[in-house]
């Protein structure tokens, strides 16, 4: 009993003087990805730098929008995605998280 109390006191004191005195543990969230149409290619490259939450957050977007987004990842953020795989990813995103038409956004 006394031992437990001492531990409780120590824990309390620690959290007071340094809130980040030990490693924090980040939660993992499994953002759902529609399967099929080479979702494994999207997984392989998109998830190097960011969760799929980034994609889901965009809502449904047009083909030009997704094309521009993938181009940004490659050209600006230097994502190492071969040309052919870029097209596969765009097609996957348009099919499951977008639409073909340009108008309406």
């Amino acid at each position: 009993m006394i031992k437990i109390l001492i531990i409780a006191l120590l824990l309390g004191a620690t959290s007071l003087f340094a809130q980040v005195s030990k490693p924090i543990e980040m939660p993992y969230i499994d953002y759902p990805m529609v399967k099929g149409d080479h979702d494994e290619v999207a997984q392989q490259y998109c998830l190097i730098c960011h969760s799929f939450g980034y994609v889901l957050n965009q809502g449904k977007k047009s083909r030009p929008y997704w094309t521009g987004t993938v181009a940004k990842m490659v050209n600006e953020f230097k994502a190492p995605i071969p040309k052919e795989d870029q097209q596969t990813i765009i097609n996957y995103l348009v099919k499951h998280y977008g639409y073909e038409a340009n108008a309406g956004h």
Partner: protein
Amino acid sequence: MDKINRRNFLGAGLILGASTLLGKETNKKIITSTKEFEAPIVAFPQKKPMKAISDRPPLLESSRDIFSQVITPNDQFFVRWHMPDIPTYIDLNEFRLEIKGSVEKPLFLSVDDLKSKFEPVEITSVLQCGGNSRKYYAASGQATHGVQWGHGAMGCAVWKGARLKDILNMAGVKSTAKFVGVNGLEKPAVDETPKFFREMEIDEALSGELIVAYEMNGEDLPYLNGFPLRLVIPGHFSDSWVKMLSEITVMDEYRKSFFMDVAYTVPDNDCECVISGSDFEYKRKPIAAMKVKSVIGYPTPNTVIKKGSRVQITGVAFDQGKGIKEVMISLDGGKSWGATALQKDYGKYAYRQWTYSWEPKAKGEYTIMVRAINRIGNIQPQVDEIGWNAGGYQYNAVDSVNVKIV
């Protein structure tokens, strides 16, 4: 780095599993539904459950009801990182803030040094992401690239730290210095990805208003808000409020970089918007001073209120530091406007809370709108008046909330 990659690899497998389950059920909906994906509500370290747009890098959005108070609690303060590799542990015995470049005496300062060798200063200031409220641009016509934030990528806190000016003076800025660069400990997953590096002119860095903060609302900075140090630039969008600040580089020349010259830029014209053609045909400028803005904290959208009850409508307003002069309110979708009561002034860079007592006398749907004006006459644009930019930055159009009186 290694750890993060392994975790990601494992994560990919988990996602695959989850999507297998979801695939069947939602297949039909995916094609026809225009419903937004609802981000899960998750409690991250030192945080209450918040809307988790992403876990890596962490993007956590505050809920609208937070705008019914002036000070945003640390455990509900929004989170936005750019890079996936963020230290999950910082040993304060080892950690040093480095001041280098065009200085007489480079410095390596511990957090204790910052607390003991410099005069501590406190400022209450709004911290707002440049892309805050971005999703509302889609309502006025054209979607914009970037994280589709609601209003919840902003907060207001009391920041305590040392003046950047005092730190630079201790290092002794050389007369050739023209710019100051800042960066923190976050790292990209791919080495070629541009580093998160921000720059400002030397005069701004020496203005005396910027602080290197080690406390937020009387506590150590939460890890996810930049423990142990964060740059505070009152009145400015948060792009240069570098988290886990580790290096301050005094420079004779401007250094071109993705995060200064491409991201967080708008057309360099009076409206900072696209008048015709493509956004990137315009000369660019980095976003800096915030625009006058007000947001409704209560009631929240779709609140059902009993006829005849007394409703205390409230929210916050702020600008770039000129001060809020008035916040107007409309209860009929913008046809007529009245004045709200401004509450206590916490300083020119803080939220100014406003309130309005309302006793709805008839049943039906109501649209509450608010519109702020600052002391130099800047007024929030109407939703259909706001200038558009491709990055979706600086959204500050009139806020509205629909409620139902029963």
